[in-house]
């Protein structure tokens, strides 16, 4: 009986907070038919926002994947002073407000910023959006890869080195295959975050329709312009990406459990 009550309370909490709101958005989105939604997400502004969002993620995520693997290697395999500090600083992007991120980039790369006089535009332009996205999605890969590295130990890497493999060969043939599921999981999380970032991007993008407007910015603009149907349609597109991410996470978690 008590068990049933707890279950009901837990499920009701999740329903009120998560499931029903998301259901209502999907209902509202499609209540006027799929055609209207299709029209709303194929306007020139929407298509341009979609490609920009994709472009930014395609630049930011691979860079962070490389950084993440290197950072994880340094954290787990390296021995150096200040390791604890490095470890703590790595989590900063998780804790810093997106608005602070945007302001920080503004102060470094803006016209009056530290690097403002370098002769190319960063703020109110695509490079600024890319920098903001790299910032907020920075720790994901490192945080997923580091525990895997710790778990597998460096036995096999040492064996490879003893047999004459150089550093790169050891990494490519031994380490990389062992961390691949953690790496892919981290990439999925980073991609979801990159596509969904709003606050930091909204400070640095300038929100120029067709040029520096990402999907999340488009949602906000349409909402502010009382184009609710349009905002719902763009949201539904983002929600589909989120659901795909969830499915990928679930599948990858199974894979990881099977391989370890």
């Amino acid at each position: 009986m008590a068990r049933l009550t707890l279950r009901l309370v837990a499920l009701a909490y999740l329903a009120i907070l998560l499931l029903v709101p998301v259901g209502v958005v999907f209902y509202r989105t499609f209540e006027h038919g799929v055609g209207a939604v299709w029209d709303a997400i194929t306007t020139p502004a929407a298509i341009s926002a979609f490609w920009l969002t994709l472009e930014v993620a395609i630049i930011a995520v691979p860079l962070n994947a490389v950084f993440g693997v290197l950072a994880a290697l340094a954290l787990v395999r390296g021995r150096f002073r200040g390791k604890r500090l490095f470890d703590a600083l790595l989590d900063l992007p998780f804790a810093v407000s997106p608005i602070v991120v945007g302001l920080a980039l503004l102060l470094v790369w803006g016209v009056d910023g530290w690097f403002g006089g370098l002769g190319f535009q960063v703020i109110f332009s695509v490079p600024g959006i890319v920098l903001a996205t790299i910032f907020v999605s920075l720790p994901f890969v490192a945080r997923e890869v580091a525990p895997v590295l710790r778990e597998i130990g460096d036995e096999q890497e040492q064996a490879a080195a003893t047999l004459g493999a150089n550093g790169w060969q050891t990494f490519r043939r031994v380490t990389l295959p062992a961390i691949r599921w953690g790496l892919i999981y981290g990439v999925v999380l980073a991609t979801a975050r990159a596509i969904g970032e709003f606050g930091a991007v909204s400070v640095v993008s300038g929100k120029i329709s067709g040029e520096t407007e990402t999907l999340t910015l488009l949602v906000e603009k349409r909402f502010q312009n009382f184009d609710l149907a349009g905002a719902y349609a763009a949201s539904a597109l983002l929600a589909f990406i989120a659901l795909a991410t969830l499915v990928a996470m679930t599948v990858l978690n199974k894979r990881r459990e099977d391989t370890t």
Partner: protein
Amino acid sequence: MSAAAPATPPPARVGAAGGALRRRAKAPRGTLALGVSTLWLSLIVLLPLAAVVVRSLDDGLGAFWDHVTTRQAISSLEFTVLVSLVVAALNAAFGTLVAWVLVRDEFRGKGFVNALIDLPFALPTIVAGLTLLALYGPSSPIGINVAFTKVAVAMALLFVTLPFVIRSVQPVLIELDREMEEAAASLGASSFTVFRRIIFPNLVPAILSGAALAFSRAVGEFGSIILLSGNIPFDTQVSSVYAFKQIESDNIGGAAAVSVVLLLVALVVLLAIRGLERWRA
């Protein structure tokens, strides 16, 4: 990897040559990885954050203090910390409950519910805000309208921080030894007493670190709040939105000062979580 790969330390076999060889094999990659990743972290994260701190102190400590203590800034900071504390506490309670149900209960669709928990991590924050507004806003199909109130801000924060406590408590609960509970139950303890005296003490560190993560996320949250809060000064305005408005109206000094306060809160919470984790280990 098969199950036959235990993580036991290797037998002693480290001669002088072995040690040298290992060092040679490891040294170059170690430093390269460290160098590149430190450079990347500094350029992308640390340098910009340093710029915020420097800018906030540009006009001296007095100006910094004036910016932080304007009535509107103070009111937004107070509300932000207060609502984040409430949200962290609610998360601690409901997160533990949901984690318990997901680990100890069996029902159809549990796998689906478990996958659903991560939705707030995957869903863009602006969509989360719009989503809550669709159900609990002016055009609510069930007639509940909390838009532009403090309740709406709390709901948005509860939404985006939902997974933290659950995902932190779940693994501890799975690992927990059932024998002690069975012993207590066989000695006549009620299931509530078993929870209070046996299970709960084991969960405290995990609950606290999950709640701390939720708190730090709530303090900085922006995207899910912007549509829901109505941004009413002295009422529903949180600090991140306040800072955003200051940037828009070109009061960079004011924005930087409040940002530094938010940064400090984030830093303190990060360190607290580190301390908690060391306590757990």
